[in-house]
C-alpha cells in the first residue's frame, strides 16, 4: 500500500480498487451529492454491494474519531509518534493544525 495516495489520491494506492475507495471516501464527506451517487455506484460495481456498507461505516467512524481527537485535543500516543517520523514528513501531516495538540507537549531540544 502506498500511503502517499491518502493525501495525493491521483497516485496509485497499490490496493485493489483503491481509486474507487479513495473517490468514495472523499465524496461521502463532500458536498457534491451527484459525485457521491456516482462513487457509490462505482464502488458497488467494483467490490459488491456489501462494500458500500463497509466503506460507509468506516468513513462514518473516522469522521467520529477525527472530531473526538480534534475536539478533545489529544496528542498521538508516544509509541506511534516515535515510529512515524518519516511517514509524517512524507505526507505533510506535521503541517496540520491539529498537530499542535501533540507538539505542544514536546520538550524543546
Amino acid at each position, binding site marked *: 500500500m502506498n500511503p502517499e495516495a491518502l*493525501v495525493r489520491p491521483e497516485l496509485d494506492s497499490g490496493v485493489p480498487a483503491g481509486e474507487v475507495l479513495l473517490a468514495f*471516501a472523499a465524496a461521502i464527506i463532500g458536498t457534491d451529492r451527484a459525485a457521491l451517487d456516482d462513487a*457509490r455506484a462505482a464502488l458497488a460495481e467494483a467490490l459488491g454491494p456489501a462494500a458500500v456498507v463497509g466503506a*460507509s461505516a468506516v*468513513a462514518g467512524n473516522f*469522521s*467520529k*474519531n477525527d472530531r473526538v481527537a480534534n475536539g478533545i*485535543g489529544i496528542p498521538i500516543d508516544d509509541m506511534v509518534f516515535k515510529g512515524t517520523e518519516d511517514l509524517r514528513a512524507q505526507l505533510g501531516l506535521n503541517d496540520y493544525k491539529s498537530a499542535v495538540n501533540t507538539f505542544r507537549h514536546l520538550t524543546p531540544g
Partner: protein
Amino acid sequence: MRFYAESDYPVGAELDGAHAAQFANFARAGAWGTADQRLAVIHEARQAGIEAGLLEASGDGGVRPTVELPGAIRDVIGTLAVNCPDFDQATYQAACEAGLSDAAFAELVAIVSFVVNLDVFARGIGVPLRPFMEPRTGAPTRTVPAEAILEKAFVPTIPNVPDGGDFAAELYGGHFKPYIMRALSIVPDEYRAHVALEQAQYNPLPKVMVFDYSHHEGLSRPQVEIGAGRVSAINDCFY
C-alpha cells in the same frame, strides 16, 4: 424492525443494532446534559451539516428541540460538525467561557461526533437521515470519575492502568487503550458508546492490530485503511 430496513445495501445486524442503540442514547439524559439539551445539540450539528451542503435534509427529521442553545455553544457545535480541521484550543476555551464544564464539554464533543458519524453513514448508503427520537425524562447524573486527571488533552481523562486504578481496569477491560479511545473517559457512558460504535464500524478492539483481519464483507483490511486514511486526511486530523 431493522433500523436501516429500506437500505438497498445489506446492513448487518451488528451495525444496524449499534446505530439504533446510539439513537436511543441520544434521547436519554447524559452525565451532564438533559435529554432535551442533547437533542438540541445533535439537531444543531445536523443543521450545520445541512447548511454546509454536507448532508441532505430529510422529510422526517424527527422530533425538534424545544431548548434554545446559547450562540457561543452553537458556534462550537458548528465548528466541530462542519469545520473539524479548525477546531482548536481556542474553540475549547470558548466553550468553557460559555459555561461548559470540562465534562459537559466532553459530552458535547461525544454526541456531536456520534451524530456526524451516523449521518455520514446514512448518506453513504443512500438512505434519509434517521429521525431523532422523543427525549425521555430523567436527570443527568452530574458525576465525574475521581480517577480523571489532566494528562495531555484539553480535558481530564482516565489514565491507563495502573495510574487509573480499579476504575480504569474495569472501564478499559484490563487492556491498554490509546488516547483516541480514552479521550471521552471523563464521561464513561460516552466512552462506552464510542467503543461500541468503533467495534461495529471499524474493528473489534482485540482485532485492531491483526492486519489480515477485516470486519467488513467485501473489503480487505488494506481497503478499509485506504478509506479510513483518506477521510482523516481530508479532515486534517494529525492523530
